[in-house]
């Protein structure tokens, strides 16, 4: 019998699949960028179904709310945007076909050879506390290294902008 989680799983599947097709096949680059928002949103739905409540919210906040918005901004600045009907050619020659096919093959092989730890759609309870403990106790060094890297990247970006403004 199909339970409520499965129904939502198929709803999210449809959302992700439909939006992904739009991202790839839309001739309008900006529509592709907007469709990506729904893909990222649907992935947050998958996280909810896997019991990762904190991760799902962060997915919406960082990917859908932050990165995707910046992507849309960036898309608006691209040169070909003045002809929206043809700004996103979907087929770009034989090389991209090989690249895409190769990626698909690799992903399929990896998917087949991985044993997945959790296959249930059941709620595991709040995860925020465990994530916090893992990050700040077991994996404190990688966490700090990544934070440091991000700060360095941020300072670098500011320096680059300052240089551009002065010249």
């Amino acid at each position: 019998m199909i339970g409520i989680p499965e129904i939502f799983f198929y709803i999210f599947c449809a959302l992700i699949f439909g939006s992904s097709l739009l991202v790839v096949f839309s001739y309008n680059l900006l529509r592709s960028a907007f469709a990506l928002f729904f893909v990222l949103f649907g992935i947050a739905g998958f996280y909810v179904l896997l019991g990762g409540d904190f991760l799902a919210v962060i997915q919406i906040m960082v990917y859908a709310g932050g990165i995707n918005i910046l992507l849309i901004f960036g898309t608006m600045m691209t040169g070909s945007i003045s002809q929206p009907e043809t700004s996103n050619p979907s087929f770009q020659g034989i090389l991209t076909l090989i690249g895409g096919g190769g990626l698909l093959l690799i992903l399929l092989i990896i998917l087949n050879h991985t044993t997945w730890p959790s296959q249930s759609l059941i709620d595991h309870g709040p995860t925020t506390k465990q994530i916090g403990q893992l990050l700040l106790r077991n994996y404190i060094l990688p966490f700090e290294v990544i934070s440091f890297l991000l700060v360095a990247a941020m300072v670098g970006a500011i320096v680059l902008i300052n240089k551009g403004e002065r010249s």
Partner: protein
Amino acid sequence: MEAFAVSLGVHIYLVKAIIMFIIAALSVTFMAVISGLTTWFERRIAGRMQSRIGPNRVGPQGLLQFVADAVKLFMKEDLIPKGADRLLFKMSPYLCMIGVFAPFVVLPWGMGIIAADLNVGVLYLISITALVVVGTLMAGWGSNNKWSLLGGMRSAAQIVSYEIPVAMGLLPSILFAGSLSMIGLMNAQGWAPWQWSAFQNPFTMIAFLIFFTGSLAEGNRVPFDLPEAESELVSGFNTEYSGFRFAVYFLAEWANLYVIGALTTAVFLGGGNLPEALQPYWYLSIFLFLLKTFFIMFVIIWLRWTLPRFRIDQLMDLSWKYLLPLSFIAFFGQAVYMLIDHQFPVIDMVTGPIMFLIFLLVLLKFFYRVAINFREQNKTVNTRA
């Protein structure tokens, strides 16, 4: 209620779906009426502040003005400009509407009264504004209008940059409560003002002010209403909209006002917490919660008709150069405070009342200044006469 319906032979999923539908319908209806009434409230206050009357014809004191406005907007023609991206243009109002109504899932109504107490309620509430950003960007691009595009881009840039101070401003309260759920945040506070999270210690007070300023910017309210600066952009991202689609934007804007008020109340101002003796009367808690929320809404409206608008560079400066570092200080300070507080619990008993006392003194000073102003005003009027 669920068990009763199941015992009658109704399928459990159907019962759950019906209950969810009823709660959702109640929230949306409440919101539509509240945002309608808020338009009237705002226009009356604006009238009073500008020495005019404001809407007072439809219904007692003009109370039904919003019904008349809504009917007028329903009757209007639904225009789509030539050259617009029709799909994006039509989709945008839905996204804005969902983005503003989705927070009602986790907004409390009083002590323990909430549609769904998510574990990550506050984070969900902050992150779901992404829908509004995408909606405004869609409207700005889809309208094929330079003012709309500028308004949409300003709005998105503003919301994305103020999201950070807002989230950081909430962190001290989250630390203090040790929970991300709205009920958890509310229960960590007491009924008395010195038990509220806003008056816990200097750091939560700073965080409260940062959060409030940031939410004004996120809600596109004056002094941060650059996305719809009338003198520059006609009406911002919704310039090309008419009829019901336009009404949806306005509904969303005033619904957002309520969301800001309710979030501030729940996280910083003690929510609907009652003293021990009054706790059996749960409806009092709903009343108290709504009262505080409406007071915050009043303050926001009051600011709108008092302050001039920021320039766009000042707006970004405020967010990145002042609010963000301040919020880091507040977060760090709160963490240190909690460590010290853990060892000497006495501090906790002292700082709350002291902070509240300072707040009261500031309030007294404010009333004193207002009184002086009124007296001076009367004097000049009298001499002229």
